[in-house]
């Protein structure tokens, strides 16, 4: 019985995906295009066959379209999580559900695209925060969030100690692996839109530890790995014959670094201290490697340098504590200052506690601390789209993919929630696990247990 129901459900979902998307017109909406058209105070947006086909103040509703009266609600592009573990990790404290860490055996070659579970219940939770696509990025070894300090994080720490920089035949494993892009489309059996979009690298304290204890070792090892990757790319046949010198990384890892050293694939560098940021900028210039910075808590100190190098940053705007010796100058206006200096700033929600859906509030926090509202909106839509080369999403413009969210108010506000979420023109279900639990217990108790 149960099996039959599940099977029927799966069929329905697949069929939904296969059919062409309906035509939808959202009317009476305040439309934040995050594009040249700016804010449309009262307008209509039309979604046809998965694309945005009209957006503006004076748009007529096509015949046969399903009309959603926004009643003054706000329409934005679907949010894009710029760095997350969504669909690759579910329960931080349950090791078996976490596939976002590079583990003990691989470095740059680790590929998070193979970790993706399109049926992860966490996806619905993220979508309820207006997120419609995400870059999923691996973390070094067993990291990636979960328990907090009150939880006596010994287990997580042990995992990190045992894996990061583990002694082995070759170089320590500094690279966390390859990132991928996903779309949060319910019922789609393959939500990966692009794999191998970047190689993640943890520097600073984490990198130093992985490298055996010191920043000096970490950067040397990175440069050495790049040199090896170039040598490997120049003469693969010699490598296959065993006619090259020994490389520090395995064939798999070197293979992943080749597009990085060729400048085709960016390196996602997690770095926090101002001096480390400057080291990374210098490294990237010397090695002619494209980089994206993540973390960058002291980025505001090096804002001019980051802007000059044209390097984008991914920021958690809540980070204002000197919680380590590499974040002593953390400030709530880090994002605002970087943006003002001309840096492309993407704002992220927290990887931990499944709090990706708070991305929009982190953008609100940036506004509260000096970032212009439109820049903050862009930091969760257009900017991450640009950083990750997702040219079809991130703005509300004719021809773009219909990843669209209707909100009952200001999307960056605490008391707002999405009332309709579209991915590729399909309205997404809102009955994720958390809401089912809510609905089970919000109703009055009956004579039978709630499980009936």
């Amino acid at each position: 019985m149960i099996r039959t129901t599940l099977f029927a459900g799966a069929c329905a979902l697949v069929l939904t995906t296969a059919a062409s998307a309906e035509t939808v017109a959202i009317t009476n909406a305040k439309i934040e295009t995050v594009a040249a058209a700016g804010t449309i105070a009262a307008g209509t947006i039309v979604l046809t066959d998965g694309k945005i086909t009209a957006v503006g103040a004076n748009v007529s509703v096509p015949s046969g379209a399903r009309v959603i009266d926004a009643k003054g609600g706000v329409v934005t592009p679907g949010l894009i999580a710029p760095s997350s573990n969504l669909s690759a990790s579910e329960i931080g404290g349950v090791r078996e559900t976490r596939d976002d860490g590079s583990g003990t055996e691989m470095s740059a070659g680790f590929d998070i695209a193979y970790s993706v579970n399109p049926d992860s219940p966490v996806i619905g939770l993220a979508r309820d925060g207006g997120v419609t696509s995400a870059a999923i990025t691996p973390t070094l070894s067993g990291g990636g969030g979960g328990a907090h300090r009150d939880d006596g994080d010994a287990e997580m720490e042990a995992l990190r100690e045992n894996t990061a920089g583990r002694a082995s035949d070759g170089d320590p494993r500094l690279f966390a692996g390859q990132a991928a892009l996903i779309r949060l489309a319910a019922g789609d059996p393959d939500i990966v839109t692009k794999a191998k979009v970047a190689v993640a690298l943890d520097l600073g304290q984490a990198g130093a530890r992985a490298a055996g204890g010191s920043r000096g070792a970490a950067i040397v090892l990175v440069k050495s790995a790049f040199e090896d990757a170039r040598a490997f790319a120049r003469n693969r046949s010699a490598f296959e014959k065993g006619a090259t010198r020994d490389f520090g990384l395995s064939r798999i890892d070197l293979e992943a670094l080749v597009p990085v050293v060729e400048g085709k694939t960016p390196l996602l560098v997690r770095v926090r201290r101002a001096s480390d940021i400057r080291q990374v900028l210098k490294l990237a210039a010397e090695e002619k490697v494209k980089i994206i910075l993540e973390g960058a808590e002291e980025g505001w100190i090096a804002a001019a340098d980051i802007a000059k190098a044209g390097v984008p940053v991914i920021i958690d705007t809540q980070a204002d504590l000197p919680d380590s010796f590499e974040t002593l100058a953390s400030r709530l206006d880090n994002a605002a200052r970087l943006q003002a200096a001309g840096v492309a700033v993407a704002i992220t929600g927290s990887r931990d506690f499944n709090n990706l859906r708070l991305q929009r509030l982190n953008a609100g926090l940036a506004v509260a601390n000096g970032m212009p509202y439109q820049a903050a909106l862009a930091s969760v839509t257009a900017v991450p789209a640009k950083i990750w080369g997702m040219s079809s999403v991130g703005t509300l413009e004719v021809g773009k993919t219909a990843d669209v969210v209707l909100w009952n108010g200001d999307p960056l506000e605490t008391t707002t929630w999405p009332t309709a979420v579209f991915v590729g023109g399909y309205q997404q279900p809102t009955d994720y696990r958390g809401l089912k639990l809510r609905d089970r217990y919000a109703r009055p108790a009956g004579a039978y247990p709630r499980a009936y």
Partner: protein
Amino acid sequence: MSSFMRAALAATMLTGLAFAGASSASAQAAKPAAKPAEKVAAKPLPAGLDPSKGPAPFASTYKPLPGQPTAIVGATILTATGQQIDNGVIFFSGGKIVSVGAAGTPVPADVAVIDGKGKWVTPGVIDAHSHLGVYPSPGVQAKSDGNEATDPNTAQVWAEHSVWPHDPGFNRARAGGVTTLQILPGSANLFGGRSVTLKNVPSHTMQAMKFPDAPYGVKMACGENPKRVYGGRGRSPSTAMGNVAGYRAAWINAADYKRKWDDYHAKAEKGEKADAPKRDLQLETLMGVLNGEILVQNHCYRGDEMAVMIDIGKEFGYRTTMFHHAVEAYKVGDLLAKEDICFATWASWQGFKMESLDGIDANAAIAYKAGACTVIHSDDPIMTQRLNQEAALAMAAGNRIGMNISRAEAIAWITANPAKALGIADKTGSLVAGKAADVVLWSSDPFSVYAKAEKVFIDGGLAYDRNDPKFQPKSDFELGQPGEGAFHQ
């Protein structure tokens, strides 16, 4: 006078009292009795051996910051007693709230008046679950003082002895309107130790932050953490049932210890010969619970585990004051209401471990509507800076399913209700005449993502002012470091 001299003097005074009691008891002992108890002049115990006698150790030396009579006029006031007063007036003087009312509420002529037009006023925020000071920034091993994870029962340790008052996190929390915090030991153990309640004022000693006359709490932990920490070492508890056996064994010992002290005091009072039990700091904390002096602050995620913990309390005659991290309170809201036990939760953290898998945004709202005493807590040096917004998320999750929870109600989740759960509701937590002038002036609706605390008063003294660097204290640690402790514009 040195604390040593004070203690010595107090010991002398107690000795005198003990002798006086003994002599009157001797006078009554003339009546014949079948088998009279042996009567001797009770020998007073040396200082420190009778926990019920002598001055409280590590006593508060808290002194309010200098203040002046102040009125805030024209703001929207959330009193945390269920009222929202638009265009209201609040006046405080001598560290206490004097009056709160609608426009036109009289204010003396010669006091400082703050124009509150467009702004909001709430009681100071109370974080009922914090590890500031015990897990301070920077989070280095040398300052990781929050979990005495060496035994499943460490009821003998006191969080106050781990508090580093220079933790920069205190300053961040104050800028978020937090005026009072309960600092707890971690949750590695079944009994983690005593909590301490602090006034969030900058200080170079812990004692000068200690909230005067606040009761202690004892941190208990349900669930995964104790069994993981100790099971991982091949010792008990390694299972949920091992946890419960551990709590019960401890309460048996505590009840026995209490009986010995009660017997001793009863005999000593009657002038009978009595041997005092040897003082035991671990059992003393638990005896404090059984005596109704120490509050039980129980880390407990799951509803079914809360139900078990409630029954343990019934078995040994104590009541749990609050369940913390109670992400499943929504499953047992009626039970919590019936037993008059508060619960504290986040709105947005969920699913980060197996026992938090069923956490939902509407947890607080559903249990609140069931009548339970609702608290939003942080357990986190970042979230503590925006408990107002966390409460907003919890409120919005309820309103999303038509619960119509007002700001006037929800503000109590981070003020009046945690005050109740910390045993300080008679002193702070709501804007009522006679209570401490712990007051926050917000730039706008405090439930908004854009709201910022502009001024924070603690006992009437200006502790933080967003627009005046003189009132943005920096910790010793941050002096001369990059950033110099400045974390906002």
